[in-house]
């Protein structure tokens, strides 16, 4: 596969420490498109080895608006279902530029390891020095070891190593959309995580037309008024959680966006620094970046201040545990009690619909109504919208905001980018075959 692709599928066997590469053929793309279309196919191909499959969306890392996402596909140790977790921030794009579109991890390692994927090379590395350490400490250690502050990581912390049902795979330093206990799965495989870095080049079949259409679509997006807003508080207010902006105000620092995503879906809370500071903090760890809007509001509903909520979210990210599950299941109301309860978290979190998409993503349209009203219609739309976003690599929350990102123009760009004829019929078929 020459275009919009690195042309490579990486297959790592943790049992034998063998690393193989497979070609990503045009025929596979014509049949499965990309993202979870392809990771579902690869999961099925290797399912006897209980694989973790990581994949990038077909448009990920390009000029298509919000083309930020990769995905993890695996069987949830909590629900027993094949599930798909978006990979956000700048990490999804780094995976693609590190040299592989898809990575299959089979089996379990006899001792703790991490996978170092860089510029088309994959190393199975000894994780003895970071096993037992928190997510932040592990990411710091790997960045220092490689000598690159832009190294992107996907890591578990003590929760995953200890087998917690709500252990989360975290991204760099931050909580992730993982509500499936994938952290527990990583831990059971003695897999501490991944480090990615790459300087690759992705070629495009018709580059001028691809970029021109991308800009036309971006201009349409910018005409939609919601881009005047920034950060997580307006999203929560739009979802009916009133007073969030006022509650968060005393600790809100800045808002940031995932790769090429027009709306800033992340908000930094400064906990041990002046939130209004407009220079580099002298404090190495002044706060926490929040993308998990529903976890945040769960702690608000427990009666915590925004400052205490930030402290708990930071502790969850370091320990590698799903903050939403902690808020919903801990039964505590103080920072000290909540953080002391991490190892005891148990119970069930409802996963909506077919159970294959994460409720980290709100299950309703945001800012725009998409001409939907009936709740059944909204759930069907949400599942399809999530599937489409994760086939093409579009930020899954942004896709709920932005009607200008259509299946039609994603297919158009996919065809311009690959030189293949990818049709609505193909997309419908891929969605129908994604397991849930």
């Amino acid at each position, binding site marked *: 596969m020459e275009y919009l692709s690195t042309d490579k599928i990486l297959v790592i066997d943790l049992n034998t420490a063998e690393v193989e590469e497979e070609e990503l053929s045009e025929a596979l793309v014509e049949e499965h498109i990309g993202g979870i279309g392809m990771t579902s196919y690869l999961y099925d191909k290797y399912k006897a080895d209980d694989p973790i499959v990581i994949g990038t969306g077909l448009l990920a890392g390009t000029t298509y608006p919000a083309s930020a996402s990769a995905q993890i596909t695996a069987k949830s140790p909590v629900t027993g279902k094949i599930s798909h977790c978006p990979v956000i921030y700048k990490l999804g794009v780094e995976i693609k530029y590190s040299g592989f579109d898809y990575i299959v991890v089979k089996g379990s390692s006899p001792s703790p390891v991490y996978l170092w994927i860089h510029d088309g090379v994959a190393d199975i590395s000894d994780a003895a020095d970071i096993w037992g350490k928190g997510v*932040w400490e592990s990411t710091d250690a790997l960045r220092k070891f490689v000598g690159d502050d832009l190294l992107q990581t996907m890591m578990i912390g003590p929760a995953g190593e200890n087998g917690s049902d709500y252990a989360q795979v975290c991204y760099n330093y931050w909580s992730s959309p993982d509500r499936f206990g994938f952290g527990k799965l990583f831990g059971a495989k003695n897999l501490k995580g991944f480090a990615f870095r790459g300087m690759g080049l992705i070629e495009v079949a018709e580059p001028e037309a691809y970029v021109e259409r991308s800009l036309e679509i971006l201009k349409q997006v910018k005409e939609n008024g919601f881009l005047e807003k920034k950060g997580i508080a307006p999203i929560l207010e739009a979802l009916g959680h009133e007073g969030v902006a006022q509650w968060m105000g005393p600790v809100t620092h800045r808002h940031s966006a995932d790769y090429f995503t027009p709306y800033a879906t992340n908000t930094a809370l400064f906990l041990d620094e002046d939130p209004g500071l407009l220079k580099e903090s002298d404090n190495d760890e002044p706060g926490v970046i929040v993308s998990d809007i529903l976890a945040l509001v769960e702690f608000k509903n427990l009666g915590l201040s925004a400052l205490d909520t930030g402290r708990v979210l930071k502790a969850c990210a370091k320990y590698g545990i799903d903050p939403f599950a902690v808020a919903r299941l801990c039964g505590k109301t103080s920072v000290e009690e909540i953080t002391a309860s991490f190892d005891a978290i148990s119970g069930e979190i409802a996963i909506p619909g077919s159970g294959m998409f994460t409720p980290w993503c709100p299950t309703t349209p945001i800012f725009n109504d998409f001409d939907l009203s009936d709740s059944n219609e909204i759930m069907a739309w949400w599942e399809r919208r999530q599937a489409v976003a994760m086939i093409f690599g579009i930020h899954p929350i942004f896709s709920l905001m932005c009607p200008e990102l259509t299946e039609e123009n994603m297919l158009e760009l996919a065809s311009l980018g690959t030189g293949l004829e990818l049709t609505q019929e193909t997309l419908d078929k891929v969605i129908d075959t994604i397991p849930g």
Partner: protein
Amino acid sequence: MGININALKCTNCMACEMVCSYHRDDGFAFLSACIVAYRAKEKKDYFGMLLKEEDVLIVARPEGVEINKIGEEADPDKKADASAKPMLLREGCDLCEEMDDYGPMCIAFCPVDAITLD
């Protein structure tokens, strides 16, 4: 005429970096961009932009814009930043002179209008 950067509007999405590199490489990459999203201080949520022009390196940070003449001796009291070195090796901004339909691509693609033309 030159590029004007408002680091307080920037959301660190890297759109500028991607399209600048596209302008150089006719493909998608990050390696050739003369404008980059500065993101090395992630835990501090400290970000902005770096722009290499022919003779100067422009550092746009939340506290303001600093223009450093390339080739001048660095201030010994300032802590060096490893990200500056690869920037100095890149070609300077040419305002996308060959991209007649767009003008500077970083301006056209910035979703929050943090980059404008002076």
